[in-house]
């Protein structure tokens, strides 16, 4: 935490945007191919995941692409994209309809839907289709002393709660683990303002060797030689900081998803390994 980090927070717009709790959905017959070509069927995406939360492990579940907490979306395609381009991790969410009306949660990331954490008591009252509004705040956020570093989709309060240091005019961000660029996979085809990128967990031995299989949902991670400013690409001496937002996958080219929050040249952006760099601790999330 740096008390004097200068931002343009007072110039940012705080705007409401609504989504609806999704229903778990499958394409008939529901199977997906795993790394060995076998057909498997797993829950995890969409809806309300009652027992997997930010702070829990990303690997090892009998699930695929597990989205912790509540996943919301809009069936109107242009609203879907507004949800993805404007909602920021750390934003406040307010339930607008149903049994949990009025309850408040917090955005913990973005996969194919926006992911929101609510406490256990609230989860039990939420129904598929309930409307949840998010107070989108953070789009356009800049570090005034680091114009070369691009910030993506984090609430200004999350930035203030993260452990940051300035050493030799370089911003140092606490992260749990460094991921090698060669394992970055699905998501490279998308613009870097939209959803996430999966790390490819197919080489199980490497996952174990590098302790990537111990990653937790909500972990801050770093990828060296990754430039995520205008897309997701390999670029020497560029650094991207991201949050692990969904669980592991059995599909080739897939694995836990990471959502970019900072990207820039290594001259200005660096990292420090700390196992405390997880959203659950940073945002003081209550289960």
């Amino acid at each position, binding site marked *: 935490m740096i008390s004097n980090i200068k931002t*343009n927070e007072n*110039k*940012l*717009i*705080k*705007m*409401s*945007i*609504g989504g609806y709790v999704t229903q778990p959905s499958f394409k008939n017959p529901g199977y997906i191919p795993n790394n060995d070509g076998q057909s498997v069927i797993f829950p995890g995406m969409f809806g309300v995941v009652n027992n997997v939360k930010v702070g829990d492990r990303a690997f090892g579940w009998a699930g695929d692409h597990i989205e912790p907490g509540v996943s919301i979306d*809009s069936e*109107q*395609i*242009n*609203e*879907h*994209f*507004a949800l*993805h*381009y*404007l909602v920021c991790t750390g934003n406040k969410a*307010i339930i*607008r309809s149903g049994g949990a009306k*009025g309850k408040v949660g917090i955005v913990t990331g973005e996969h194919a839907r926006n992911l929101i954490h609510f406490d256990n008591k609230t989860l039990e009252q939420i129904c598929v289709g309930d*409307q949840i*509004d998010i*107070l*989108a705040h953070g*789009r*356009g*956020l*800049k570090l005034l002393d680091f114009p070369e570093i691009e910030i993506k989709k984090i609430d200004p309060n999350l930035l203030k709660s993260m452990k940051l240091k300035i050493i030799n005019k370089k911003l140092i961000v606490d992260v749990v683990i460094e991921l090698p660029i060669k394992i970055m996979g699905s998501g490279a085809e*998308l*613009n870097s*303002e*939209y959803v996430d990128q999966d790390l490819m967990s197919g080489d199980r031995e490497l996952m174990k060797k590098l302790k990537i299989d111990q990653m937790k949902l909500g972990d801050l991670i770093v990828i060296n030689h990754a430039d995520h400013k*205008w897309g997701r690409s390999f670029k020497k001496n560029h650094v991207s900081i991201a949050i692990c937002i969904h669980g592991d996958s059995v599909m080739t080219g897939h694995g836990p998803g990471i959502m970019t929050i900072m990207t820039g040249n290594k001259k200005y952006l660096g990292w420090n390994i700390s196992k405390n760099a997880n959203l659950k601790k940073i945002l003081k999330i209550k289960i």
Partner: protein
Amino acid sequence: MKIDTNENLLVNVSVMGSVCQPNFQSLPAEPYRLDSNGSPFLLPSWGSIVHNVSVGDSAFGWEADCIHPGVSIKYPNEAGNRGLNILSCVGNDATIMSGEAKNAKGVVTGKSGRFSEQVILHFPKKIREKISINDKILIKSIGVGLKIKNFEDVFCKSLSPKLFNQMKIQNKNNKMVIPVTHIIPEHLIGAGSGLTSESGSLHIQTTDSSEMKKYKLNNLKLGNIIYIENYDSSYQHGFLRNAWAIGIIGQTNGPRAGYGPGITILMSSKKNNAKPKLDSRANIVNYIKFIK
């Protein structure tokens, strides 16, 4: 001399809109728009509930593209939305009819133009978190048909009699003297020209910083009443020597070329029958009682 109108003949009609969502194009379209230098940007734009920007605030400096202060509404189908857009007048009273903020009172402060076509309303900041996307808001519209006695050549647009009566307009030697904060030359009017003047917005062009300085436009505020020279909005928006138009600043500046602060036109005439009078207090917040 005070100016009379046909206020007692106007029809008061209820029109409804729902609080609308921000929208973005779907893939494979890129989410970025281009600024006036050709650089891509991605910032919040029109629509929705904006919690921290209100009429009376600066129209410049926000990390935003033509943001609407307060709350924006739309009717779900096009013809109904056209009804909402044409009949709503700046200064009309609005009431929230559903949700947690039900019965809260607001005021129409502007309209937005082509591609969004929303009506912009002020509600107190402290109740905005209670307002939900899709909440219904009813406007008691009155103002379409407004005529000014002895100035029959002046077209009133989107102008409630309530606001007109507070604008401190006077008749001096058969000219309307209208208090405004800024005079804007016609060459700085951009997006909106050629479109209808019964709804929608016109935008000031802000790309040329020396012109901005020359006409002191950098201190424009949301809600300011402004005067446009040589501009005729009697039917559609277009250039005409000696014509004039009065408008209100409805939305903020944006980075795109031709898209500076938006103006909702309130009055216009082809005749040389009005004179602007510079007055820094010519803002809707000083004319209509607002709860901040």
